[in-house]
């Protein structure tokens, strides 16, 4: 089992999977922060200017973490941030479900007619949190920019 968690290809797959996913989900939000702010507001946890500030920052956080994971640089920090974001998103979804809100997730697209929240969304997020936790604990830097940088440093 230990081999699974340290296998070069498993770590690479997890990095690229989570990284690409984060980049993809950030695109729509970066393009239209006002629509993302509306999605955040639909959860009825925060409102007003705070939603707009979050809608301004969160997509870029997702994009930076995604790019860092794909490139293999600052992997542990990116996995930590991605995991933290996913935990917060999951708690928001649970709280909306408990309150009986039938709203759009606002995860991949800001179109309110698709991607309704549900218990399946929580299942998806739990898998993604597990991937983030795996990357956080992994110290494997094969096929990464980190490996290249360290190679350069030790070579010089």
């Amino acid at each position, binding site marked *: 089992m230990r081999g699974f968690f340290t296998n070069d290809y498993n770590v690479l797959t997890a990095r690229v999977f989570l990284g690409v996913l984060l980049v993809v989900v950030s695109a729509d939000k*970066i393009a*239209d*922060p*006002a*629509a993302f*702010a*509306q999605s955040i*507001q639909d959860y*009825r946890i925060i*409102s*007003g*200017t705070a*939603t*707009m*500030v979050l*809608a*301004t*920052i*969160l*997509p*870029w*956080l997702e*994009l*930076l*973490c995604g790019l*860092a994971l794909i490139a293999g640089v*600052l992997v*542990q*920090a*990116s996995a*930590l*941030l991605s995991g933290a974001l996913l935990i917060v998103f999951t708690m928001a979804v649970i709280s909306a479900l408990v309150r009986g809100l*039938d709203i*759009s997730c606002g995860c991949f697209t800001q179109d*309110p*007619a698709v991607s309704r929240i549900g218990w399946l969304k929580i299942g998806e997020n739990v898998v993604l949190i597990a991937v983030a936790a795996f990357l*956080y604990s992994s*110290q494997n830097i094969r096929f990464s920019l980190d490996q290249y940088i360290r190679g350069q440093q030790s070579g010089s």
Partner: protein
Amino acid sequence: MTRSHRALREAMVIAACAVVLGFTSTAIRNKGVFAPATALSSVPQGKRPDTPTMIHLPEARNLFESGEGLFIDARHAFEFDRGHIRGAVSLPLNEFDKRAGFVDSLPRNKTLITYCDGVECNSSIGLASRLRDAGFPGVRIFFGGWNEWQAQNLPTAAGAP
């Protein structure tokens, strides 16, 4: 420095970069918090001093029964399809800019009354502010919204606008 301390410090650097990039990109594109005032008001600001008047169920009911009011549903279109105040028209807050023609076609001889789910939502307030800014004076906000209307078994309808 331990591995987790280093990760935490690097995470803070990434977060700081996200803040800088987020605000810079929205400032350059005039979006989000840097959007012109009219677009910014699409995010409801419930405590603005010039928020249109809020009304409660009895007044909303009077306007409905007298035919003097036109109810405008600020919720998403699919929620409107599922059920709405009878005679209401759908104008989701986030579609306001896209539907300028529809906004212009709204009657000016009626009292426009916006509503959303109920007291816990803000889109009716945002929509009322946008309508007021678009030149409709006397807009009202039915604060109890769809939940209160439905709970009182008042006339409803379902289906697309």
